């Protein structure tokens, strides 16, 4: 298990994660971030907003390894 931090980037504003959560590996952390991104998108859409440029930056607190989950990559968008 490793502790992963999830920093939320929204149009230049950053909500830094000081606590994080323990997960098995980076793949699990990525899945968690994708789920969280979709939940935040849903909540924002309910209030009439949508930020596809927002992203969650995953940080392994032990190794410093980082990965980005972009909001635009966690939803399938159609315009027809």
């Amino acid at each position, binding site marked *: 298990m490793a502790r992963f931090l999830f920093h*939320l980037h929204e149009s230049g504003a950053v*909500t830094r*994660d000081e606590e994080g*959560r323990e997960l098995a590996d980076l793949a699990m952390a990525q899945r968690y971030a994708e789920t*969280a991104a979709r939940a935040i998108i849903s*909540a924002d859409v309910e209030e009439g907003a949508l930020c596809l440029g927002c992203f969650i930056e995953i940080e392994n607190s032990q190794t410093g390894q980082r990965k980005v989950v972009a909001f635009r990559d966690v939803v399938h968008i159609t315009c027809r």
Partner: protein
Amino acid sequence: MMHCADPETGLSLWLDRLSLRSMLGDVERAAVMTLPGIVEQVRPNRDFVRLGDYVDRSCLILSGMAGRFGQARNGERLTTAIHIAGDMADLHSAVLPTAASALQSLSETTIYRIPHRAIMNAAERFPMLAQALWRDCTVDAAVLSQWALRNARQPALSRIAHLIAELGVRFGIGDARNGKDFEFPLNQVQLGDATNLTSIHVNRMLRQLREAGVVAVKDRRVHIFDWQRLCAIGEFDPTYLHLQRADDEPQLQARATNRLRR
């Protein structure tokens, strides 16, 4: 948060809570204060009543904080109640001993496991106490109903505000609440489990509340800056907690007493 790792203080806190909602005489009070049990220390994040367990004791929280939860097949949990010192977390198990919901310590927690037999004996001997225990379970159900409504119908910010306001009232931080603080051992994951949000979403909402000058959660404490706004954001009305003193409702109590004596 009040710390009370000894049974006498814990029973006394529970008795105070029962007495807020029910008029109890000396004999009923003595019956509560002499309930036997076993003290148990539970490390954080441990299930001390598991789903499906057949239990023969109810758990009084002496210190710390515990969550009642349900669990989906994929292991995802939803906390459906938070219990603090002086709460009998599963009083209902005295009549329904197979655990349909489980209990987990959310911090270092001390519990007092009281035999169902002793609770039932006291209830059979003292009808007013039986009614008080019934009322305690009914309040738990009222809280559950409020949580279901909140998590299904309110936006994320409102859910967090509501939970903080509820715990503030239950910890008895008093009427002049701006500038007050209270112990808050929940981490973001646990807060998310209680509000049906991810920890990332919780962190985002806590930041909004902090930047709006409403509350701040720091070093395991909640700092209240603007109680009125917190309640407005959370649409918090404490009526469902039924913390009005029983002697404020004398007619209701008199009717209940007369019914029991018939």
